[in-house]
């Protein structure tokens, strides 16, 4: 375990450095004059002009060359300073914290909800099979084919307009989280319930499962003692990947529900060439990726320690 954590720490540093450097290079090589882009982000489309772009260029020293800017950023990073946003002038750390924490809540809520839907549904379809399975397969396919944006709209129409249970959009209270989480949970469950189904099928057709039933355990006991843990490993791995995808942002859901997540924020930062924010976000996501991956590996090891020591 210690060895694994040490290895992952090294990996973390490598990923962090690599991702942020690559982001820097990519952003610098984008076409168009950065000063104009930043000015448009700062002053809005009615006020962006050459005067404001020139002032931005002078203020930020955009003429001094990319290499110096990179060194500056990197030395700041070593002292734990991610810099200030070129657009808002606020510390990147604060902006990222605001966006990433909201993305994290949404992602967690979405994944938890999708598990609550997918696990029982997947196991049930594997257990009963037949027309129920085919119906669920059709529904899952339909749900998967529906853009998450449309799912979101349908959810709003049902729960916010018809039933008036939850607000349409916004943030700041738990009730605001419910609808985006449902929309996300549904579209994630559309795939993950089939993953659960397949794994459950495999387990149910296996000899040890058959033996457990033969020795006289009730259905529920068989499932609980011999099923769940066996089918959990691939499912946890799959959901880990889904979670990472979500933390990195679901732009459409975020903008539909006015949710201040990192996907939406990052898109805007890219439009405005707000390099410190982009680099900071890429860095944090790189770190998050390694951390979540490690957590998933450890979870899988705990579920199934047969593979030997964690490496």
């Amino acid at each position, binding site marked *: 375990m210690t060895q694994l954590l040490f290895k992952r720490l090294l990996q973390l540093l490598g990923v962090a450095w690599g991702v942020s450097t690559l982001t820097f290079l990519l952003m610098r090589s984008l076409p168009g004059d950065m000063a104009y*882009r930043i*000015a448009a982000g700062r002053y809005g489309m009615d006020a962006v*002009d050459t005067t404001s772009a020139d002032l931005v260029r002078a203020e930020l020293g955009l003429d001094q060359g990319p290499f110096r800017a990179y060194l500056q950023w990197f030395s700041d990073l070593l002292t734990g300073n991610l810099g200030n946003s070129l657009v808002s002038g606020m510390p990147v750390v604060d902006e990222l914290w605001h966006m990433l924490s909201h993305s994290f809540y949404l992602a*967690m809520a979405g994944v*938890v909800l999708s*598990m609550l839907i997918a696990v029982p549904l997947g196991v049930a379809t594997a257990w009963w099979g037949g027309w129920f399975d085919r119906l669920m397969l059709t529904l899952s396919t339909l749900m998967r084919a529906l853009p998450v944006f449309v799912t979101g709209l349908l959810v709003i129409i049902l729960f916010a307009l018809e039933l008036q249970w939850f*607000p349409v959009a916004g943030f*700041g209270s738990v009730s605001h989280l419910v609808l985006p989480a449902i929309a996300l949970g549904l579209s994630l469950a559309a795939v993950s319930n089939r993953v659960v189904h397949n794994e459950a099928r495999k387990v149910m057709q296996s000899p040890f499962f058959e033996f457990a039933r033969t020795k006289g355990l009730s259905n529920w006991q068989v499932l609980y003692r011999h099923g769940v843990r066996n089918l959990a490993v691939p499912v946890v791995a799959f959901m880990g990947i889904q979670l990472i995808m979500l933390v990195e942002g679901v732009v459409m859901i975020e903008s539909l529900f006015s949710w201040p997540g990192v996907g939406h924020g990052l898109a805007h930062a890219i439009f405005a060439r707000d390099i410190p924010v982009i680099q900071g976000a890429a860095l944090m996501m790189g770190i998050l990726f390694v951390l979540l991956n490690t957590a998933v590996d450890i979870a899988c090891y705990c579920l199934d320690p047969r593979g030997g020591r964690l490496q």
Partner: protein
Amino acid sequence: MLKVISVLGVAGTLLLSAPLLAEPTKENTLTIKGQFEFASLDPTRRGYVFQRMQVLETLVNVDSQGNLTPGLASKWEVSEDGKAWTFTLQPDVKFHDGSSLDAAAVVNSLNIARAKPGLMQGAPITGIEVLDPQRIQVNLANPYSPLGAIMANYSTAILAPKAFDADANVVSVIGTGPFTAYEIAMPHKLVVERFADYWGKKASIEYASYLTGHRAESRVLQVRSGEGDIVFGLDAASVPALRMLPQVNILRSDLPRVLSIKLNLAHPMLASKLSREALSLAINRQGIASAVLRSPESATAQLLPSYMSDWHIGDTSAEQDLKRAESLLLSEGWQKNSDGWMEKAGQPFELTLITYADRPELVTVATALQDQWKRIGVKLNVNVTNSSAIPSGHQDGSLEVALIARNYGTIADPLGVLIKDFGNSSGGDWGSMNWSKPAIQASLGQLVQQNDTAKYRQQAQQIAKAIYEDKPLIAIAHYVQHTAVQKEVEGFRFDPYERSYYLNEIKWNR
């Protein structure tokens, strides 16, 4: 495993509820939804949200007809030579931090704003000084009549001395308005709270919140659910259905924003006035106005709206005339080739138009233009980019044609914007490009010193006519804004200059 899942679930829920604290309640908060984000505490950087939500105020206000009215300055006088403006401040004005507004605070705030990009940089200001605790003086290198209107713009909003840090950055939004900033969550949300010591008409509502809703769909749904008390920027297509809701009023307001085509007159195909005339005639303005903007009456062939009457000329036609357009091109020596494209000396009539996605209708209109110009054999390539591509394309000369939405009401007097846009032969980033009309341009420059209203009007009319006839910019339509207001909100009025939501005049009608 199930245990782990449930523990994770509980932990997740706890995490969720931690930072989401109590806030002004649904009952005491007026909710406003709009499409624009705000990115900074600094009013010079898209500070309009703080001005509209009435946290910040300016020296001068603007009424709905565009007249300047007293704001933080109770009156102002211009010296005889026009080079010194004296503003007298309102007495007993308190900032939100309890300090008093005096001349020193105003001069400090204006001087900081003057060093940053904003409208003050376009004015010939040589210095701003304190005369006595209640009066300040702005000195100019030469007379400049739009100064009063500039002092009404959000970039000149007055902040308390404590709002700035040592490097003149804005660290906290401390203004003088009827509301104080209660919660600022950039770039989406601003909650304001009633300020009890406001010097003017005190608000009756306790809290108001502004939330950016990026998608027009979400905003429409917020009108339907009643979640938005006032919802701005409704998608025109959804208005007819919203009008049928019993609990909502839909307001239609004209904006001084114009959809127009910017042309590079140095481009060989755009240098001739007749070609530009042909391009203008080929546009189906009625079609664009009714199908895209959903307000057929907003189609126009001139830049400034009728309520800016000095700049609006009488008889202009916005009709499409494909036959005449085609014959104009033929008279210029263009001929249709076998594929139907206009051609001269083997060269096709082909142009590249750039526009930006910040306003979704621009992209739709660009493709409509592509189709309409195709009918007279002009090939138009559309390139959708960022709004900053217009000024940068103007500067490096690469811009050929651009579809823009220009706001002539950022300051109440359009003269300031017009000078910037049309004031010299190379043109302005958002105005003409390589349009050389020395007489018109000189007359535009002189207008800032014109005090005689009749002469001002006469000169303004000449300039408007020259722009309409020569077409350095081709106007297509004016903007119309639709706003939904729940019937329980009383006293709302729309400001065409988009300076204020007049929240302090609003009452609940429950």
